[in-house]
């Protein structure tokens, strides 16, 4: 047996009030794809940040080969051949794709000049491999989130890495880019690089990885060979119980049309979009990058002015000028970018959760803090949010728990129309099925729910009907009876069906 490229031994890391890692050991072999799994807040990202030199451990050691090393900072980790693809995008939006990919190591000429020619050549070579639709000079801020994620991934290919860490790389990718990512990983594996792969998506884990290590509440639970285990037992190790993954087939009576959209257009973003959502119904929106689903949601939420078409709520035409307007009319939107749009990271959990209804929670002239805490407690329990208490700053929560705060925030508004955009991005399996169940329940209670998702299993799982979009247009609307993976892919691929193969 070969030696591991990388070994972590008894790593301990505490934050004020949280023991994030409690004596975790972990090793990666060359040419191995090693999955790291655990619930939201289990400590996966923290472990990798220790490895990447971003956090200093309070105890334990790191070995590369036989050598004991100290990762004093990201620079040092990089110099030792560790490439870290972060869970959160880590990009300079004003700079070009090429400059971002080679951030920190731009090729130099005399006088400290950037060697632009070399930079463009190297970048284009990588982009070609990644088969993306943008080029080296594109401004990163102009890319969609999915494409920005691809820029992050491209960084793995810039250096001769010994180990590459992917922290939830697929959370914002659609299927087409995932295929490319998996190709990249296969190439890296073939050249003997050790890979750490963090994801909450079981199908990827079982498709891609060789071994799986599992964390629970900062404690190491063990490592298993992927080939010798199954989803159920991995889940059991992660959450300590079995999970009921059966489709919630409860079909309830649909009510009146709550939301109807007729011929809605917004410039070049999408055009002539018509659909309706009834009370008690979950409508899924599925499509590729840039299909325009987010923009429809933003229009319904008063964040964009439509250039044509009508929006009808309960059969009555409305003009929605602002999110405040939308909220007053009973619309809620769980946005796709939790850090940018969903949360005030410097604020505590409770304040974030009650933000949209703060004007209604009154005790005399003041905010009714008791009522706020009650709301927070209710949704913390319901969504299983892991936090030391409501006073914790949201910025200190793990990615998945942050997402749950956003969902809780909008559920607590009891909307008539609930729009969720990528609701389970970065959410662990246990909570994910919890959220799916919740969405179904909400529908059963008479909410009209729109689910925008780039995960096919998700839309198939929760939606009563699925709207397939391609490039700003609705291609087809499926009922749950007629939809299959194949015809869905056909529909969202528009005129290039080969791409998603």
């Amino acid at each position, binding site marked *: 047996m070969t030696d591991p490229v990388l070994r972590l031994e008894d790593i301990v890391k505490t934050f*004020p009030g949280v023991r994030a890692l409690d004596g975790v050991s972990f090793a990666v072999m060359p040419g191995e794809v090693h999955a790291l799994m655990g619930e939201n807040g289990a400590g996966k990202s923290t472990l990798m940040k220790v490895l990447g030199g971003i956090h200093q451990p309070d105890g334990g050691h790191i070995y590369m080969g036989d050598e004991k090393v100290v990762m004093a*900072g*990201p*620079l040092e980790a990089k110099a030792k051949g560790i490439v870290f693809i972060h869970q959160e995008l880590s990009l300079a939006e004003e700079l070009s794709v090429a400059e971002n990919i080679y951030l920190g190591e731009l090729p130099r000429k005399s006088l400290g000049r950037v060697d632009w020619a070399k930079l463009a050549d190297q970048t284009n070579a990588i982009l070609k491999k990644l088969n993306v639709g943008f080029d080296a000079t594109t401004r990163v801020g102009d890319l969609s989130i999915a494409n920005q994620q691809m820029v992050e991934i491209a960084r793995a290919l810039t250096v001769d890495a010994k180990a590459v860490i992917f922290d939830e790389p697929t959370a914002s990718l659609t299927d087409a880019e995932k295929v490319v990512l998996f190709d990249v990983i296969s190439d890296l594996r073939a050249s003997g690089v050790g890979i750490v792969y963090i994801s909450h998506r079981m199908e990827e884990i079982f498709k891609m990885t060789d071994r799986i290590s599992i964390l629970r509440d900062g404690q190491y639970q063990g490592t298993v060979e992927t080939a010798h285990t199954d989803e159920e037992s991995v889940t059991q190790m992660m959450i300590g119980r079995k999970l009921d993954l059966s489709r919630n087939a409860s079909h309830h009576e649909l009510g009146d049309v709550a939301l109807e959209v007729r011929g809605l257009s917004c410039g070049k973003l999408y055009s002539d979009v018509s659909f309706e959502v009834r009370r008690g119904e979950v409508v899924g929106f599925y499509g590729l990058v840039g299909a325009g689903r987010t923009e429809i949601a933003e229009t319904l*939420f008063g*964040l964009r002015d439509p250039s044509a078409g009508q929006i009808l709520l309960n059969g009555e035409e409305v003009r929605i000028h*602002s*999110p*405040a307007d*939308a*909220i007053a009319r009973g619309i809620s*939107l769980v*946005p796709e970018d939790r850090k*940018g*749009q*969903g*949360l*005030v*990271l*410097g*604020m505590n959990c409770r*304040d974030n959760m009650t*933000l*949209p209804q*703060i*004007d209604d*929670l*009154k005790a005399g*002239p*003041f*905010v009714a803090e008791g009522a706020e805490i009650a709301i927070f407690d209710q949704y913390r329990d319901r969504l299983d949010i892991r936090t030391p208490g409501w006073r914790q700053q949201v910025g200190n929560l793990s990615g998945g728990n942050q997402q749950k705060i956003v969902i809780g*925030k909008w559920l607590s508004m009891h909307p008539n129309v609930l729009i969720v955009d990528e609701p389970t991005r970065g959410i662990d399996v246990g909570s994910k099925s919890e959220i799916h169940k919740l969405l179904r329940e909400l529908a059963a209670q008479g909410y009209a729910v729109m689910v925008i998702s780039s995960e096919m299993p998700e839309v198939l799982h929760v939606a009563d009907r699925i709207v397939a979009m391609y490039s700003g247009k609705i291609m087809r609307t499926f009922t749950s009876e007629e939809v299959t993976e194949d015809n869905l892919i056909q529909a969202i691929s528009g005129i290039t069906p080969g791409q998603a193969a």
Partner: protein
Amino acid sequence: MATLTSQKIGTILAKQGILIAFVAFLIGFTIANPKFLTPDNILSVVRSSAILGVMALGVTFVVISGNLDLSVGSMMSFSTIVVLDLHDKIGPALAIPAMFAMTIALGALIGLLVGYLKLNSLIVTLGMLSAIHGLTLTYSGGKNMDIADKEGTWFSVFGQGSALGIPVPILLFIALAALLGLVLSKTSFGRKVYAVGGNGTAATFSGIRRARTVFLCYIMSAACVATAGLIQASRSLGSQNTVGQGLELEVLAAVILGGASLLGGSGTIFKTVIGVLILGFIQNGLLLIGLQFYVQFVVTWVIIILAVWLDIAAKRGKLWSPIA
């Protein structure tokens, strides 16, 4: 258990770093000159800090909402000149509300530009600094403004009067601080200010009317400035056009000393008050020690950096910055 208490002490230190620094200064100055901590001196420092302090209260709102207000100094000159001028023309009872209305109108203009038109607040208020100065000069014709009958007006009560042995400026400062402290920490408006400053986009996505919130912050700032102008005018019953010149940076320094981040989203009224007092006591303390004014400059430099540094060092639990 031991670790728990030491951790607790650590958090307390982190939260109150600025307060501790303040107490340290007080002790230091008292040792240097025992007159420093006499009731007379304390009252005199707090009273002369009251003008700066009242302005800082309003600017705290602006800064928490993620903006700056560099126009407060020249706006204060404006309100002082205006109220003194109107005092003799229409009498104090009308002059005061008229001055408040005019000052708040200026604040509304800034609020419109920064809030609704989303212009950069640094430049807008820099422009207003200059424009309001021009306005004041035009209004007064460049002359000092003095009340004709200084003995016979009740107008002097805001700056010179006292109740229960406490000067009115101090009472006004305390009352406003208490009121605005409650507004900021306990009302939904205050919560919105923090949200808008912390992440304006997320606040908008949460249905908060960001422009309106910013607008209201500037209105509050202008109202505070008008109050400061009132105290100022009443204190000396006469004034020159430049009375508030340069105060904008002192106000900002006080707010920052109190730990408000210029990025927005953090800060409290209580800490701003501490920041104001620190500045006031440093100036006074150094004067009492008898240092030249320029030595005061240097000392203030060191103290500002030390105080803010210790404050954030306590928060991050490390003295040295993690910047590589």
